């Protein structure tokens, strides 16, 4: 695989496991916040552990938002990295990147529905996409408290009390609410699908 992946260094994230998962697929993978390296990458990943406020602070401090918006190669936001693709997050009440219209809200508590949504849960495709080849109906590992609004961008949904978008796409920008780097063989398949998408 000839992919040359850059993980955006936005602080507080679990780079190690994501980098290892991508490298296991034979791709080159490094962390960077250098604009030239980011523009030169074949694929860009926004990893995500932390809070929306902290992630946006890191992006703003490095003036990365205009750069991310200008990218034309495939971009994948993971977990929090997917949430900040939307316009606004209820977590920290912060405006986010706005690459996909919609807001991110706290998952509602309900009887027998525990928040955070933590564990393995199945995704179900609502649209065909190369990213989802061979993985619809499979279990992925989710760890989150907030979820995006459903929209035209939704490629697959997951249900925890209510249905929410598990996989989204708007043009070259993709997002997954789960952690493919922690989702066993099916997560590896999804990452391979992403690396197989070309600009």
């Amino acid at each position, binding site marked *: 695989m000839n992919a040359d992946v850059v993980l955006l260094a936005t602080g507080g994230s679990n780079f190690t*496991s994501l980098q290892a998962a991508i490298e296991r697929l034979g791709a080159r993978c490094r962390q960077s916040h250098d604009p030239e390296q980011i523009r030169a990458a074949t694929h860009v990943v926004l990893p995500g552990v*932390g809070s929306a406020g*902290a992630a946006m602070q890191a992006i703003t401090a490095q003036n990365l938002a205009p750069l991310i918006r200008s990218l034309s190669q495939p971009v994948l936001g993971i977990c929090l990295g997917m949430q900040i693709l939307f316009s606004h997050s209820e977590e920290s009440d912060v405006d986010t990147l706005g690459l996909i219209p919609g807001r991110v809200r706290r998952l509602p508590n309900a009887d027998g529905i525990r*928040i*955070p949504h*933590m564990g393995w849960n199945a995704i179900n495709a609502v649209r065909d996409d190369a990213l989802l080849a061979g993985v619809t109906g499979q279990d992925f590992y989710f*760890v989150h*408290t907030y979820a995006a609004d459903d929209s035209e961008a939704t490629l697959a949904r997951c249900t925890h009390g209510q249905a929410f978008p598990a996989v989204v796409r708007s043009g070259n920008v993709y997002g997954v609410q789960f*952690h493919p780097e*922690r989702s066993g063989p099916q997560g590896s398949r999804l990452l391979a699908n992403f690396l197989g998408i070309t600009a």
Partner: protein
Amino acid sequence: MLKKRIIACLDVANGRVVKGVRFRDHDDVGDILELAARYSAQGIDELVFYDILASTAQRGVAPDWVAKVARRIDIPFCVAGGIRSLAQAEQVLAAGADKISINTPALENPQLITTLADRFGSQCVVVGIDSLQDADGQWRVRSHTGNPDTTRERGLGTLEWIGEVQHRGAGEIVLNCMASDGTRDGFDLAQLSAARACCTVPLIASGGAGCAQHFSEVFIHCDVDGALAAGIFHRNLVSIPALKQELAQQGIAIRL
């Protein structure tokens, strides 16, 4: 539908995986990376690494093995033991752990739970609770349980503490029922049911697993989100794939 999780706990001491009975008499059961890789391949849903000497020895976890585990496996794992500051937590998460679990340090400084949840999000912050029933019938928490000689009774009710840690931002609770630990007589269903009734975040049952029936009991009677075991997996008394098949056949939501 969210699946019930089967979690293997690897107690780590001096860089090796060990196992004791009622928190005593630790045997060496193997290499950290080998066991982590074997359990992942067998379909375990999650791993927890407890550095059982870290709290009592007043030191933090060694991040070198955390990074090695993160590179080796592709399922989630949590690291526990001696994490008592934001900086230590950041080290462990940066090394690739998905979650951190705090126990004694949370009792000594409950504000730590809030500090960690604000910085990393509640979903990264697990609180482990070691609990024992006292002569008056009350469940109370214990601290410094890595070594029986240093274990302390805190004068704090377990259910009260479960309420407080959630209020402070814990994203998951692992309840170790100490009287059952290592006995293989089954989970403490009474205590776990009482805990479930006051726990709105994910709750993990720990202590007493001996056979597949014990897992189905604790999922059905206590509605816990996950069940954790160590010795029965380390000693191959229960096969992980067979356990998951059996639970699925009983209608329990399980990842196969």
